[in-house]
């Protein structure tokens, strides 16, 4: 080793230096043409996280876009996780337009996205065209790097037949009611294992995350730029409630039952097959039920809230998909045209909403008579406008924020332990991770 080092080290170091200096550091925003080009040509790459039926919906809207611009071709990369899209963009991959989740990704992805403000000013697109939290939340760090396409609202799905059989006519409005009903609705096999479950409270099951579940208590994550969950009464109460319900049903029974369930996104979804009577899920589930379990007799309602927490009933946890374009895109005008089409074209927004059964963020689309809204879906549109709708903070650490709490919560739901200490540790972890990201 000693003999080789001097000989090979010098060129190696030179190589490192050369690579870093010529590196594909993402530069500043370029100036924007004064008028939008009349004709667009070429091929652009759109990356998004939808799969299967949902990917087909995106594809059909993209086809409408291509019809408007015959010279343009959009190459769609579907089924890409947000982390994967971030990796591809960061490593200089061929990405022009990316569609990701605001809460888990915008904080890390924004700096690789082009500033949309000059394009918006030129083409008369205003933030006020969009409704709800995400009109402003799709900007990060004072940069308008993305616009919302559709938003998600979480609520309660309940199986009317199963509830009726147990003597219930209305869905629960508080978590205590939910817990009582869940216990009554749960049936067991002769060997003691769960046959059908009233409600699966495990964090990690389906859409149960620290973000969606804590929203039922209005628990706040941060003050300013610091995580402060340990100081929040609501955080203590929501974790205690969940742990209590898990204990009452039995952690091991729940775990065995959950492990044997079908995939959330397939026709084996346990709510759709009637193995679970009530579930916390997003508005898109309506579309999945329509396709995969059309005969299911079910209702939707705002998710119950923690009594005495100050969180009003009627809203729910909200999130959104946002779309932006890469700073490195060689086809910025075409990319912007696609972004603009997917976010501000009423027809496209309505088609997306109808297909995905997500909540339109474009005001004109939300008010459009063409929006096909059955009662189950209508409930979610109302919930998204409710003042009780809330979301988790969008930060530089992206999904790590919620993941850190999930981590603690999954341990806590099994073993219990000192809640205050645990939450303090979560705060410290989040703050340390934020500081590592922000280091200069």
């Amino acid at each position: 080793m000693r003999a080789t080092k001097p000989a090979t080290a010098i060129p190696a170091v030179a190589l490192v230096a050369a690579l870093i200096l010529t590196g594909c550091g993402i530069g500043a925003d370029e100036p924007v043409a004064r008028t939008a080009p009349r004709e667009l040509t070429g091929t652009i790459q759109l990356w998004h996280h939808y799969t299967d039926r949902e990917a087909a919906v995106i594809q059909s809207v993209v086809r409408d876009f291509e019809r408007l611009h015959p010279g343009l071709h959009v190459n769609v990369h579907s089924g890409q996780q947000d982390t994967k899209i971030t990796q591809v963009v960061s490593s200089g991959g061929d990405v022009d337009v990316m569609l990701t989740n605001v809460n888990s990704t915008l904080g890390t992805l924004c700096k690789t996205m082009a500033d949309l403000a000059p394009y918006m000013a030129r083409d008369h697109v205003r933030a006020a065209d969009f409704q709800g939290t995400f009109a402003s939340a799709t900007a990060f760090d004072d940069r308008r790097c993305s616009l919302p396409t559709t938003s998600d609202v979480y609520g309660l799905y309940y199986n009317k037949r199963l509830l009726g059989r147990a003597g219930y006519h209305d869905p629960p409005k508080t978590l205590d009611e939910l817990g009582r009903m869940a216990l009554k609705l749960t049936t067991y096999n002769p060997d003691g294992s769960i046959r059908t479950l009233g409600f699966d409270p495990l964090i990690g099951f389906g859409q149960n995350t620290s973000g969606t579940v804590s929203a039922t208590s209005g628990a706040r994550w941060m003050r300013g730029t610091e995580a402060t969950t340990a100081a929040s009464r609501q955080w203590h109460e929501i974790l205690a409630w969940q742990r209590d319900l898990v204990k009452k049903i039995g952690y091991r029974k729940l775990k065995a039952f959950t492990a044997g369930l079908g995939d959330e996104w397939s026709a084996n979804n346990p709510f759709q097959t009637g193995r679970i009577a009530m579930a916390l899920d997003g508005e898109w589930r309506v579309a999945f039920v329509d396709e995969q379990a059309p005969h299911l007799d079910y209702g939707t309602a705002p998710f119950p809230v923690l009594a005495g927490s100050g969180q009003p009933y009627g809203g729910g946890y909200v999130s959104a998909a946002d779309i932006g374009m890469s700073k490195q895109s060689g086809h910025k005008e075409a990319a912007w045209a696609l972004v603009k089409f997917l976010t501000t074209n009423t027809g496209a927004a309505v088609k997306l909403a109808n297909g995905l059964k997500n909540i339109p963020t474009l005001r004109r689309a939300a008010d459009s008579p063409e929006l096909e809204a059955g009662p189950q879906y209508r409930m979610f549109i109302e919930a998204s406008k409710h003042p009780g709708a809330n979301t988790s903070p969008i930060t530089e650490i992206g999904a790590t924020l919620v993941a850190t709490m999930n981590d603690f919560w999954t341990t806590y739901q099994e073993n219990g332990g000192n809640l205050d200490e645990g939450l303090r540790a979560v705060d410290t972890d989040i703050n340390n991770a934020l500081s590592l990201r922000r280091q200069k």
Partner: protein
Amino acid sequence: MTSTRSLPRPSVAKPRPAMRTRSLLASRLPVWSMMILGLIGLAVFFLYPLLANLYFSFTNYDLAGAPHWTGLRNYVYLFTQDSRVGKAALNTLWFVVILVPVRMVFSLGIGLLLSRRKTARGFWRTVFYLPALVPPVASVVGFVFLFNPGTGPINAVLRHLGITGPLWFNDPALSKPSLLLLGLWMAGDVMVIFLAALLDVPKDQYEACELDGANGWQRLRFVTLPNIRPVLLFSAVTGVIAALQYFTEAAVASMIANGKTGIDAGTDQLLGYPDDSLLTYTQWMYVQGFNSFQLGYASTMAVVLFLIAAAVMAVLLRRAGLFTKAQG
């Protein structure tokens, strides 16, 4: 015959220095042409990354911008602030101190059984070796399905016997032992090496031993083990190195046992399931580097991994003199 003689021999002809260089070059050219690809490879895919990695470890680097020098910040985070890196390191340590020795003892046991057999040894060797060839991903997918607590055949069999089966890959306390079972099932590669070494142990040593009235344990202790010591050392060190980089089995087990598809959740939320019990050091490094895109911090983790691996390798290179010299 003649052509060899026509080659100038520097030591015999004693030509002037310039001549000598040229002829040396001529005679050495084929040799270096044989080495050139490999030498480029060592420089580009080994030495350069080692050094570059060291540099990155002192920076905040996300590939979107240029690396930004931050001194020891990443090291401080690793040793005092990252609460998951400790768990990950402990999980990896579990595989190093449990998986490696258990696999070796198990392989040695089977090797001993087979070495004593006179018939059908080839058949048995195939039976025990074959699982080691199955692609690890396929083995894990199979095992996680077989051990599914709700619907898997293993617990179904246990139910027929009146036993409530455990949660296996879904229980943080059992997920690593479940992977240990998989590790034993796949231990054939070690077993084959041991078996070959066992068959090489001189028969007369056993006979001498038996004449001295030694029992089975003493035979193992004083004849077998000393004879196969180099093989044991080799497989211990390669086993430890492999355990330090344990990734695929744990990652795939987590993703499949979790039941989540990862469509809306990132891989980082699936890895380690259940409760981070399968989060190994290299997985956490992968998450930091390629999911969170904190390449600087991932490089810091790599430096620490390098130091540990280097220490393990030092043992090998010291103890087994066989490696230290290329020739002569």
